[in-house]
């Protein structure tokens, strides 16, 4: 493999303005496929979730999934799009063995939603508006597994396996208008856009939008134009960039690669490119010598989709608060800075913290446990916070026990450890492990007396005014109570008994 020439990022940006176009495919979380009644459940035996329609058998016909249309409209509305009063599906004709009919039922010049925008917030709080060209409905293809080759691509493979369970799963393709003016922040904008879109899709409840499971897939189209020019350059299309970090890296790499080619007097070839997760590079895929001719025409097997204005308004009324707006509201409610909010966001903890607060915890405690003990634990296990066996209600209970003085932080951490280890609810762990702050004044008093008696010298020093020495006595008491005493109360008692005030 030849080494791709790259220009330094700064040098590239000094000479060129990047123009991006982002195409995101979202698999909808409908129970059934877009045009038939087959299940969309992931992970089933290959080809077990198929029927004549999604296998494209002769004579079969499609029927539109109404929930799919509803989801598309919701996405369109959330992206501030106009919703078509009347639109049709179209056939996109091309051959590929994982496409049962050898055409994809999609939309062409009559998308269900068009002309919108999404405001995305960068990490420093700056808001960048990404214009949306369109969002349209289509069906997914089946899945090919190429066997016997070195790369897993069809080239060099001895044979291919086809699984049509995915064929016909509803997709929404969301296409931006050219994103110009982002300058050096272009890769960051790309990442923030995809992140915001993902949050939006999740908030709408139309898909889980898990990129690692292919439920959301992104193509990054990028071109450069010399500074001061308004004429777009030739673009490359980097396909299937499937994580937020990769979106940023792919854009960055392509900026540097394009710049190197242009700077050396070369021309950019319009082509698709493969992104490589390992080193963040892209390599040439398929050259598009001329625009591919998909011979689109209106799908004659389906009637037009004509969502009534009443329905559209009904759906608009059900839209949840936009993720960005919600995030800013929460940040203010919680009284934290942009950076801390970003950390919470990156950790995927926003909803968990909100739920914990709803379960009765105060926001500081909720953030503390999720971003501290639990985040550490999740990190160690390589899991998401929401995959831990501890619910927001559990965390709220721990916080309540701390607040009422039944637990101190040290004990609370042990309770959390117990819950995560599957020992039961926080209360059960407290019982089983005997983790309670010793608040029985009698028992505590005895322990304090004991400590004073055993450390007469120190006690004298305290009586003599060296109050700072009290720590040693507190430590002794904590030792005898095996850490289950409230240290602050112990200190109070010691000073009281020694007749010293702070």
């Amino acid at each position, binding site marked *: 493999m030849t080494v791709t020439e790259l220009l330094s990022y700064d040098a590239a940006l000094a000479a060129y303005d990047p123009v991006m176009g982002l195409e995101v495919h979202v698999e909808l979380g409908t129970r059934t496929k877009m045009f038939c009644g087959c299940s969309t459940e992931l992970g089933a035996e290959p080809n077990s979730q198929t029927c*004549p329609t999604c296998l494209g058998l*002769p*004579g079969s016909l499609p029927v539109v999934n109404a929930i799919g249309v509803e989801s598309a409209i919701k996405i369109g509305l959330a992206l501030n799009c106009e919703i078509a009063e009347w639109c049709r599906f179209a056939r996109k*004709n091309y*051959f590929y*063995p994982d496409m049962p009919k050898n055409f994809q039922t999609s939309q062409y010049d009559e998308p269900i939603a068009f002309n919108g925008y999404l405001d995305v917030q960068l990490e420093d709080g700056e808001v960048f508006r990404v214009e949306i060209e369109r969002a349209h409905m289509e069906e997914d293809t089946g899945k090919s597994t190429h066997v016997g080759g070195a790369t897993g691509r069809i080239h060099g493979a001895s044979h291919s396996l086809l699984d049509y369970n995915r064929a016909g799963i509803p997709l929404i393709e969301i296409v931006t208008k050219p994103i110009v003016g982002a300058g050096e922040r272009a890769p960051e904008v790309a990442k923030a856009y995809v992140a915001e879109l993902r949050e939006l899709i999740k908030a709408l409840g139309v898909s889980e939008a898990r990129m690692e499971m292919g439920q959301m897939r992104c193509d990054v189209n990028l071109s450069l134009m010399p500074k001061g020019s308004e004429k777009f350059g030739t673009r490359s299309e980097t396909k299937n960039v499937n994580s937020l970090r990769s979106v940023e890296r792919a854009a960055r790499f392509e900026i540097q690669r394009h710049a190197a080619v242009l700077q050396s007097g070369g021309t950019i070839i319009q082509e698709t490119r493969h992104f490589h997760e390992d080193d963040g590079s892209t390599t040439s895929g398929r050259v598009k010598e001329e625009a591919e*001719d998909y011979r689109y025409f209106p799908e004659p*097997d389906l009637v037009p989709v004509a969502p009534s204005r009443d329905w559209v308004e009904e759906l608009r009324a059900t839209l949840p608060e936009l993720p960005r707006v919600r995030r800013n509201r929460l940040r203010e409610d919680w009284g934290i800075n942009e950076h801390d909010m970003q950390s919470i966001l990156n950790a995927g903890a926003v909803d968990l913290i909100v739920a914990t607060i709803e379960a009765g915890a105060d926001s500081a405690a909720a953030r503390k446990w999720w971003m501290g003990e639990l985040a550490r634990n999740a990190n160690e296990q390589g899991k998401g916070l929401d995959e831990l066996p501890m619910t927001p209600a559990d965390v709220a209970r721990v916080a309540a026990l701390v607040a009422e003085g039944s637990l101190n932080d040290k004990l609370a951490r042990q309770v959390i450890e117990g819950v995560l280890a599957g020992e039961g609810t926080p209360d059960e762990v407290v019982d089983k492990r005997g983790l309670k702050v010793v608040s029985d004044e009698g028992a505590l008093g005895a322990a304090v007396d004991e400590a004073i008696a055993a450390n007469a010298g120190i006690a004298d020093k305290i009586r003599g005014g060296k109050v700072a020495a009290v720590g040693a006595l507190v430590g002794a008491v904590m030792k005898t109570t095996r850490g289950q005493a409230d240290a602050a109360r112990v200190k109070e008692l010691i000073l009281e008994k020694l007749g010293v005030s702070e």
Partner: protein
Amino acid sequence: MTDIIKLTAAEIAEKIAAGDLTAVEVTEAHLARIEAVDEKVHAFLYVDREGALAQARAVDAKRAAGEKLGPLAGVPLALKDIFTTKGVPTTVGSKILEGWIPPYDATLTRKLKEADVVILGKTNMDEFAMGSSTENSAYGPTGNPWDLTRIPGGSGGGSSASLAAYEAPLAIGTDTGGSIRQPAAVTATVGVKPTYGGVSRYGMVAFSSSLDQGGPCARTVLDAALLHEVIAGHDPLDSTSIDAPVPPVVEAARNGSVAGMRVGIVKQFRGEGYQAGVMQRFDESVELLKELGAEIVELDCPSFDLALAAYYLIAPSECSSNLARFDAMRYGLRVGDDGTKSAEDVTALTREAGFGPEVKRRIMLGTYALSSGYYDAYYGSAQKVRTLITRDFEKAFEQVDVIVSPTTPTTAFPIGERADDPMAMYLADLCTIPTNLAGNAAMSLPCGLAPEDGLPVGLQIIAPAMKDDRLYKVGAAVEAAFVERWGHPLLEEAPSL
């Protein structure tokens, strides 16, 4: 035996219900007839002897158990080989589907079975319903029972021939540009193209989705109506199926009348290319309608002159996409898979071997017409013509209740005569195509023999969308008057096989 096969569907159903005949007797009589004559006629691609007898036995058992029987229970039927039949081969007249056993029943097939109709087998057709003579079948031509050296029409020549040869009292056809009506016309049988969306297309292998329509074929107007009622109705599996009650076709067929009706004749449906004897019988039919009390109105539908051109852009365009799925990957024929060739090579070799010349011609035409840069000029313009034709019909139906015309410009031509001249072949559908483009309903029924060749001529009746009942009301009146005039149904003049 002879008696049973000459009975109409209505008579058979009545006799079975009354216990005068058993469904098994009826089925056996027709199977015997098929055995006796189909070697000559070649109406069937597949005879499902066991399936038919099993269905017949089930009907007899139902009757014995005192269960209520449907209006066509026990009546045999010949099914065009374009509808999927679970467990029974479906070839669409093409080598590309040779050996394919569908895992599911078409909605129409299911409805026939639920109505206890006995499906005798699958009938021959032009490959993928592309043709007007059944010569494009990959499995050899079908002979017209009136003259076995002549074509039985197409694409549903197997269905029309099976009726004319008394191999079945009922048949199913599909009509994309005339494939039910033109075969009916040249065999002196009755064929109806229902309103588009009236009969489900689910399980009917697609040729041109926006034009294809399944419909009934029979020897009498009433039989066609009885069958129409069984197969029609809304189907949630077909998005283009109309969600409205089936027009009262049987009632209309039982109450034939044209008295007080306004009947249109279209200027564009005559002139060059129309056989003199065909026009003579057509003009006599118009006279008959007048005698029966209809008012004749002359109509001008200028866009009809463009119908054939528009059709030969729209139908190939849709077919180029519909037939893309035949790629040898999942079902049907697979050629050249010797372990060394790529999937693309296998697809190419399979198509080369599996598709006939007419199918290839239309795939290429359609692929071209849909190409970017040509789309607007071809497919786009054709769709505009389609709109104009629909408007011409709408205007016409403001003035008249039905329109009549010859079904096809000529009588049955000899097998082979037009095989190498696609344009001449396409002209057979000159009068039938406008109806497909507009989506309304039409019927063909016999109106006499052309004096010059003694072959059947068809009268076409056209009605507005969802007014299919008018076809039967007019058709029944005309049929009754002709049979009275001739003293017998026209088909009885056919030579015995």
